[in-house]
């Protein structure tokens, strides 16, 4: 279809009718998820196989539409394919399944049992997403069009009502009314801080200086977080529409989307969305003939975690090294190039069109007293359904992890949930009935963060978790301020020692003193919140620290060397597998008779544990001193 330049809101309405008519036909649609997760699992090959199969089918007079969509959420089981009509979700689809899908399902109308969802608990098979607990328990607002629209097609977005909110804003609302509507909605920033969006917009609008800038922060960098990437890959036009509405409310002629370069697909799709919006007259001069002008450009970040911090991001946009500055004067007053600047997160912007279309009151009816709307989370770690979910604020963490996430695999016990990325904290299992809410998570010593949710089971050592995050923060500290650069390095040093069994009495107190120094003295939020992983793990799992330090024992059996191996005589069949694997000949015994492990020789490498098929090797608390004598013997031999 040729590009249509929309010169008035009526043009937009006409395009919507036209696009909707095209997609509403009775044709069979095969939607292949083509986001980063599914592509990593081979979705591109599946796509090519479908192209070939559909080409062949077309020769027989069958018309099948192949559609590129983005994240369906159930990333664990990608590549995902949805077939309509019928709403059949196929998972783990491989190119060799494609011909069968076309012949059996599309032509024959039969569901392929081997490709549909099977409940891990009950074994019950379900074909439709509307019956899978992973989907039924969610509330999808930001992600509502995922799986239905092609993220690279502006017509698709317009067909589902896209840019209607923009037309409404430009023709029926004053900037003040837009801000008031967002205020009514109670929307708070989704990037981590949870600052009220309307208040930020109002301050920026009121600030002196010209021009004003708006920025979309897509520099998501928390380990295990991929909400913003998925939104940009799945529905880039929603982000762009939100930004145009925000720019109108604030009075800004220039916007920037800052995306990390490690997200090439997100960069490509946002860039295409901007280009298409320009061509359609939804960006640029005189948008929809209303006299409002806005340009948006995309900038790629070079992979520094700290550039997710607003002042560092702005320094980076200006071409300087990505280092933060003190925010004693807010960026809404003095931001990019010294001008008033409003920076919001991807998910925040993506929420705006729905708030305008359906009203702030509707949005405020979802969620809790202080946190309105929904929140997108990425589930990662020791959880069955790794993926992307969206839930109303106020849902408990347990419901998200055990209900939607499907619980912990391999019959393990749930231990803790980490929220908020490196700046957040670990929430222990007994507090998981806490509702998801900015303020309640903060009270628990964690934070909402941008929405990364890492699940930990009984095999996860909480000291090691703190060590992991501090190592990350030490690597990502920009090095500008003393407290963060030196403080994170010192905390890492102590945590490394503890995990190596070299902890000393007083180490935890020293760590907590360092937490205080960072909280009081660091320049930016990366530094002040670097204390959180240690704060929360010492608060809820102090006992694990003490056992590491006093007993040289890691109760989760995670820190190598801080637990020993023993042969469980009753279980040992004398197969000899461990004996063969042991690098220091610490195991002896005859065939078909229980073996014995000599602790004075054992170096605790774990080779026997991995080799045993009969659970006959146990991990136990070590007898003090045995590792040292073992090490000496190994060195001497």
């Amino acid at each position, binding site marked *: 279809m040729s590009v249509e330049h929309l010169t008035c809101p009526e043009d937009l309405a006409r395009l919507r009718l036209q696009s909707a008519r095209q997609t509403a036909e009775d044709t069979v649609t095969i939607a292949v998820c083509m986001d980063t997760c599914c592509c990593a699992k081979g979705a591109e090959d599946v796509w090519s196989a479908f192209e070939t199969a559909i080409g062949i089918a077309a020769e027989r007079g069958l018309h099948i539409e192949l559609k590129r969509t983005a994240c369906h959420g159930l990333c664990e089981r990608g590549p995902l394919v949805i077939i309509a009509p019928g709403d059949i979700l196929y998972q783990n689809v491989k190119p060799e399944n494609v011909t069968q899908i076309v012949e059996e399902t599309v032509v024959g109308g039969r569901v392929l049992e081997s490709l549909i969802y099977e409940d891990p608990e009950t074994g019950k098979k379900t074909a439709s997403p509307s019956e899978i607990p992973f989907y039924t328990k969610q509330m999808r607002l930001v992600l509502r069009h995922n799986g239905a629209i092609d993220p690279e097609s502006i017509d698709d977005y317009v067909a589902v009502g896209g840019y209607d909110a923009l037309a409404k804003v430009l023709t029926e609302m004053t900037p003040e009314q837009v801000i008031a509507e967002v205020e009514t909605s109670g929307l708070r920033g989704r990037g981590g801080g949870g600052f009220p969006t309307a208040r930020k917009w109002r301050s920026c609008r009121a600030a002196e200086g010209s021009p004003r800038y708006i920025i979309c922060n897509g520099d998501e960098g928390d380990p295990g977080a991929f909400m913003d990437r998925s939104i940009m890959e799945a529905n880039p036009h929603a982000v762009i529409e939100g930004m145009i509405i925000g720019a109108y409310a604030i009075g800004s002629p220039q916007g920037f989307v800052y995306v990390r370069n490690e997200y090439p697909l997100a960069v490509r799709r946002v860039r295409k969305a901007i280009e298409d919006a320009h061509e359609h007259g939804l960006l640029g001069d005189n948008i929809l003939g209303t006299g409002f002008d806005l340009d948006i450009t995309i900038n790629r970040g070079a992979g520094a975690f700290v550039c997710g911090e607003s002042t560092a991001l702005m320094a980076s946009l200006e071409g300087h*090294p990505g280092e933060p*500055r003190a925010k004693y004067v807010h960026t809404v007053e003095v931001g990019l190039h010294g001008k008033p600047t409003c920076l919001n997160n991807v998910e925040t912007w993506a929420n705006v069109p729905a708030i305008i279309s359906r009203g702030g009151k509707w949005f405020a009816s979802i969620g809790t007293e202080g946190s309105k709307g929904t929140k997108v989370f990425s589930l990662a770690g020791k959880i069955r359904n790794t993926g992307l979910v969206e839930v109303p604020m106020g849902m408990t963490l347990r419901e998200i992890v055990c209900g939607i996430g499907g619980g912990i695999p391999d019959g393990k016990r749930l231990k803790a949930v980490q929220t908020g990325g490196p700046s957040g904290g670990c929430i222990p299992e007994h507090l998981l009935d806490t509702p998801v809410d900015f303020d309640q998570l903060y009270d628990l010593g964690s934070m909402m963060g941008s929405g990364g949710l890492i699940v930990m089971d009984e095999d996860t050592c909480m000291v090691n978790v703190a060590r992991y995050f501090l190592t990350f923060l030490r690597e990502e500290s920009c090095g500008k*301020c003393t407290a963060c650069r030196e403080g994170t390095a010192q905390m890492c040093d102590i945590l490394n020692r503890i995990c190596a069994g070299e902890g000393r009495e007083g180490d935890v107190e020293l760590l907590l003193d360092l937490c205080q120094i960072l909280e*009081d003295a660091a320049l930016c939020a990366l530094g002040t919140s670097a204390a959180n992983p240690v704060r929360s793990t010492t608060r809820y799992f102090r006992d694990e620290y003490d056992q590491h330090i006093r007993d040289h024992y890691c109760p989760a059996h995670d820190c190598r060397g801080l637990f020993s191996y023993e042969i469980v005589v009753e279980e040992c069949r004398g197969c000899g597998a461990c004996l063969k694997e042991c690098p220091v000949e610490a195991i002896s015994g005859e065939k078909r008779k229980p073996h014995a492990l000599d602790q004075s020789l054992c170096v605790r490498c774990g080779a026997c544990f991995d080799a045993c098929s009969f659970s006959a090797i146990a991990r136990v608390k070590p007898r003090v001193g045995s590792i040292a004598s073992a090490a000496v013997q190994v060195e001497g031999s």
Partner: protein
Amino acid sequence: MATVTIDGRKVEIGEDRTALEAAHAAGVEIPTLCYHPAIDPYGACRLCLVEATLRGRTRMVTSCCYPVREGLEIATDTERVKVARRGVMELLLARAPQSESLRELAAGMGVREPRFPTVTRADHDCILCGLCVSVCSEVMGVAAISFASRGVERVVATPFLKPADSCVGCGACAAVCPVGAIHLQGTDGQVEVSPFNTRLPMTRCEECNAPITGLPFRERLEKELRPELAGALRICDSCKRSRAAAVVKKSSHLNRLAAVSTPAKGE
């Protein structure tokens, strides 16, 4: 003008000034490392922390870059401030335990030995305060040195760690360094800016032959200054003082004036 209270003392100060400047005006001492009056505040060393209370809200801020506002209250001597400053000092001292000037400043704050080991490597005791980098770019307009790498790897360096072509040998970096990490050394008619490995032709005093500065720096100043002043660039500070003293000596009028206005010892 804004009225600001520093440790209970009220001062009137312009609204474009900082909490640190207000403290100076009130005669209150605040330790600093990365602050210099000629350079834009950078807020990196974190030593000048104070508690700032504005509209009922108290928070820790670095006074060097915190702008004053009407009614601002600053507390420089609270327990929280002292603990945080000592903590920062310990971290710095752990980084550069050999630095004499750092030890001296630390002792003044009651810090003898840090509780932490040395885990980050400081080249020549450099504490990365950034004064040298700022003076080179902001004041001299040269930018021969800048920060390179990130986090604990961060260093002050010339581009690609090669001798800097743009360096004029002015020595401002060495002059502002609070820990003496940078030196200008004269050897074989050249001036070497250490540790940056940058060598430049040296100018010498036309009277006593003492080394003065890098030749590019003099050439630049000669272009910028009026010719009658540019002559002063060719003699060293010491000889300039001798010349000035000789002029003063000749003037009996000035001698008399000096006798009247200089109080005798003991008064």
